[in-house]
């Protein structure tokens, strides 16, 4: 079966996670960094986690009294998937760019 290409929002999230692939990232920080609303970010994160492309863990917060934060990073499969799809999107965009006369 043909695999669906990720949405532009998913590509944005993948790109942000791939930049520092080994680091754990937090939901609120990602919304600020990417400029996506949490209403868009969290469903994307959930789908990525469902597909095994994203791993998560609970980390102690650096703010006193704040509850532990849920942190995310790409799995190895996720890194490969992100690289492949970001490259594919970039080449598709290049293909669509009109050649100057």
């Amino acid at each position: 079966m043909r695999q669906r290409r990720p949405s532009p929002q998913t590509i944005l999230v993948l790109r942000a996670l791939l930049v520092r692939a080994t680091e754990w990232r937090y939901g609120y920080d990602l919304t600020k960094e990417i400029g996506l609303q949490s209403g868009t970010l969290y469903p994307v994160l959930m789908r990525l986690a469902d597909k095994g492309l994203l791993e998560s863990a609970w980390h102690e917060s650096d703010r006193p009294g704040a509850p532990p934060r849920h942190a995310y990073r790409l799995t190895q499969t996720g890194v490969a998937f992100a690289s492949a799809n970001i490259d594919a999107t970039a080449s598709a965009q290049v293909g669509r760019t009109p050649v100057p006369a």
Partner: protein
Amino acid sequence: MTDRLPLILCNVATRLLPASRRLWADAMIAELSHADDNRAALNFASGCLVAALRERACDADTHIMATLWTIAVVTALYAVVQLVCAAHGVAVLFGGHDGMLEALLRNGASSTIIANYETARPIVVSCFLALGIVQLTTAWFLSRGQFRLFATAWCTACLIAGIAVAIQLSIIPNDAGVPSEFHALLMQAVAVPVLLVWLHRRHRRFQESS
């Protein structure tokens, strides 16, 4: 109040999210305490609410329950119609106005047909009363997801409807050859099982793909 609004919104989102996503609800609430200010927290919490609604809308179990409830409500409405018919029939039995008898007399029905009609009237009224009650029971079992009991009640309802239609058909066939409510009952008898089979197959396909 405005300070607490983001937390309230996140708590609503927690309740809206399907059970399988509960961990994500905790994640959203935890992030709330890291928002830069109250405005940012409100913005973040509103987004979480939207995310929860989206997840709820995509949830297969929610789809199934919503479809089951829709079928149950339509079945219950059918039941109410049968009970109203039965109530009208009871009123006729106790001397109320009988439009059907009037129509038969106006169309010059023979005395045998009139006699048969009057004999069968209490049985048909009882059938409609029983049908209404059994259909309500059917709707109840369906809404609770008790499919074996539903199937039993459904077969009983079909049997009662069949008896009611057969009696009427044997006495006073209308111009088309069948009593007027026959089509509605037949449509319901066919549509509900077909919808349930479709729902079951869809659910199975979803489980296989996930």
